[in-house]
């Protein structure tokens, strides 16, 4: 990210965030913009991906502007090794990415009714680290479930 792009980040971004996983300092250059928000959290447009050795392999996707929103996320390929999700031209355009862009994939973790941890493989979050743009995919024909049981990793 260039300094010019960093200045585009909202000055209202929290410099320190308090999550259920502890307190983290936020580097403004680490803020990922989600122009469409996330379904259910449409007002949350700026997030950070927080990682720590204790949290690994999980990360915390945390909103830094607007309503409080925090998600535990994990690489979907850790939940399902052969996970595949195709991006269409419109998805790539939304992420300002090309076919060659290395993207960060995050699946949201939730608790199933039986208390078993699950991951949402149906609607993964994709981040383009080169543009710090994120978007929650909702492929029309995905056969992956919204609650895929997370085996002990």
């Amino acid at each position, binding site marked *: 990210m260039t300094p010019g792009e960093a200045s585009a980040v909202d000055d209202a971004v929290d410099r320190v965030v308090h999550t259920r996983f502890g307190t983290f300092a936020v580097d403004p250059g680490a803020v990922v913009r989600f122009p469409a928000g996330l*379904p259910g959290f449409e007002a949350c447009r700026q997030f950070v991906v927080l*990682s720590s050795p204790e*949290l690994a392999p*999980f990360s*915390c996707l945390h909103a830094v502007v607007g309503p409080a929103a925090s*998600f535990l996320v994990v690489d979907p390929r850790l939940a399902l090794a052969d996970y595949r999700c195709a991006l269409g031209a419109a998805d790539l355009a*939304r992420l300002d990415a090309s076919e060659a862009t290395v993207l960060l994939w995050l699946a949201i*973790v*939730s608790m199933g009714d039986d208390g078993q941890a699950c991951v*949402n493989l149906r609607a993964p979050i994709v981040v383009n680290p080169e543009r710090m743009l994120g978007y929650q995919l909702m492929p029309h024909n995905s056969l992956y479930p919204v609650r895929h049981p997370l085996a002990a990793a």
Partner: protein
Amino acid sequence: MLVFTRKRNQTIMIGDGVEVRVLRVGRDGVRLGVTAPPAVPVHRREVYELIREENRRAAAACVRPSGTPGRATAAGELARRRTS
């Protein structure tokens, strides 16, 4: 609500970028084709609502694992590592 009668292959325009075309009319359903600019997401409503509910549920259940948190790293660092 605006109500239109459309025949097969007829369309309606929404704004200047979204077009909805009736492709087929069956006994139990209508097949529609939607053309929209990349910036306009198009979803089946029930899929959007399912994802919305799962997101809300996940945010509510974002529980604290054992252990104390350490230094934050972020996608920004990932980007710098990959582009350096």
